[in-house]
């Protein structure tokens, strides 16, 4: 049970790097390997900020009804006019 818990995070860190051969090794070595591999993964993650954000936003917008949009349209138009510096 304890081994499973310890290796689970290490396995996830291995996966994106494409080295699946270390699966199931001793937990101590797996943690060290995981830490070594995690560094570059965290660093490269900084570059890929944009791609995942947009689909999430679109999914949230599904709940917005046309009725609500029409009700808000006039006020939103005024908001755009009154804040011309940021629109």
């Amino acid at each position, binding site marked *: 049970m304890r081994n499973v818990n310890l290796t689970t995070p290490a396995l996830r860190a291995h996966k994106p790097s494409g080295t699946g051969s270390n699966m199931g090794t001793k937990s101590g070595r797996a943690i060290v390997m995981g830490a070594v591999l995690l560094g570059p993964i965290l660093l490269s993650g900084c570059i890929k900020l*944009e791609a995942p954000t*947009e689909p999430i*936003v*679109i999914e*949230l*917008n599904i*709940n*917005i*009804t*046309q009725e*609500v*949009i*029409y*009700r*808000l*349209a006039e*006020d*939103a*138009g005024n*908001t*755009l*006019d*009154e*804040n*011309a*510096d*940021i*629109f």
Partner: protein
Amino acid sequence: MMTKSAKNRIWLASGAAALLGLGLVAGPALAQRDPAYAAARSSGQVGEKMDGYLGVVGTGNAQLRAMVDDINIRRRAVYAEQAQAKGATLEEYAFTAGCLAISRTEPGEMYVAYSTGQWTARTGSSPDRDPRCP
């Protein structure tokens, strides 16, 4: 001889004019886009997204991203205030504003097209918007 109220009016008018001249009073004249923002828009480096916020087209650079973040924080504050006043959610208000902001793009400016979800340059014809947009 001037009456007292006439003198007061002149005094108030000149005082207000002086304040406006110094830029201390926010007059009805509305602030325009910062030149850097205006340039980024017209060159297609930034564009309007469907959610009501500005986006960086492509990878951009740190300066561009900082500018977009700043504008979006200010937009969000305005959306939140207006949404509350109209009894709507922030997302509903922002989305509505996004519809209008995309409508108001000038030819050559970028926006996210509804049917493709991709950055698209505005042409002379009407933009490809969400069918719910007014």
